[in-house]
């Protein structure tokens, strides 16, 4: 189920600001309360895919530690896509909760 939403999750993880792959994975793990402990390698194809779609931009940066790293950031199109996907998700989640949330069905 997570796989279908991975792109949205990655976009949301980058909403706070630019980050490299490891930081994105850590943000996903932390913000999900460690619910999403996905194979870390699945995030890299998602980052490349979102960049190819124009939703992310990336560049190599050399931090003071001296190790070159690829940093990803949302593009304006990425912000728009996240907004649209979030709205869709809110409706979907509300619908699923209403059906399987355990409330009694109306007679």
């Amino acid at each position: 189920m997570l796989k279908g939403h991975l792109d949205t999750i990655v976009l949301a993880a980058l909403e706070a600001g630019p980050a490299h792959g490891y930081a994105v994975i850590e943000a996903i793990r932390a913000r999900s309360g460690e619910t999403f402990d996905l194979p870390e390698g699945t995030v890299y194809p998602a980052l490349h895919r979102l960049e190819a779609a124009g939703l992310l931009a990336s560049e190599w940066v050399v931090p003071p530690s001296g190790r070159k790293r690829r940093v990803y950031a949302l593009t304006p199109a990425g912000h728009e896509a996240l907004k649209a996907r979030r709205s869709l998700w809110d409706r979907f989640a509300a619908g699923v909760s209403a059906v399987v949330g355990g409330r009694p069905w109306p007679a």
Partner: protein
Amino acid sequence: MAGVIEAYLAEVTELLGHDPALAERLAEELADHFAEMLSEAPSEDEQREAVARMGPARDIAAGLLADRADSTAERTGAVLVTALVATFIAMRLRSLWLPPLDSDGALAGALVPFVDRWAFVVAMLACAGWLIGRVRRPNARRGRWAAVALAGLCASVAAGILRIWLAAGWAEAPVLVVAATAGECLVVGLLMAQALALRRSLQRAARLAGL
């Protein structure tokens, strides 16, 4: 960083060997990931655990190649539609501006316009199949539709060239007709290159997914 992680990075690089820039970029990103995750001199067990958390190298490579194949399929679709438009314009100009072919018993006189038109129709139907298929199942990669459309367009272009030659000869044909046919040839050539790239891309993705 040596040992298990080095072997893992070497495997990723080898799996993506057809695209050295992508292989190098991913290997550098993963090396940074492992360096961030582990201490300066990780033990072999720590390295094994880090690699296990990353997942199999072939899964990462397969994911990247599947996405590349999808992008190539998108581009092929765009070039295919462009080629159809170019072929239609060239075909209409040939019909409007060239004198009709003599059909006094010569098979070519009847066959060439027939192929010119109906091969185009076949290409158009294949293109429609491609587009409908992509709307219904966006992740499906429809190399066969592209191949049929390409074959139809090639036949239409060949018939078009023959039609100009038979009807007026290259020196006598209206410049606009010759220019439109040249443009048609160019776009169909581009489509052929794109279709070959799609074929290679699909084969690589399938090979890796089947490992």
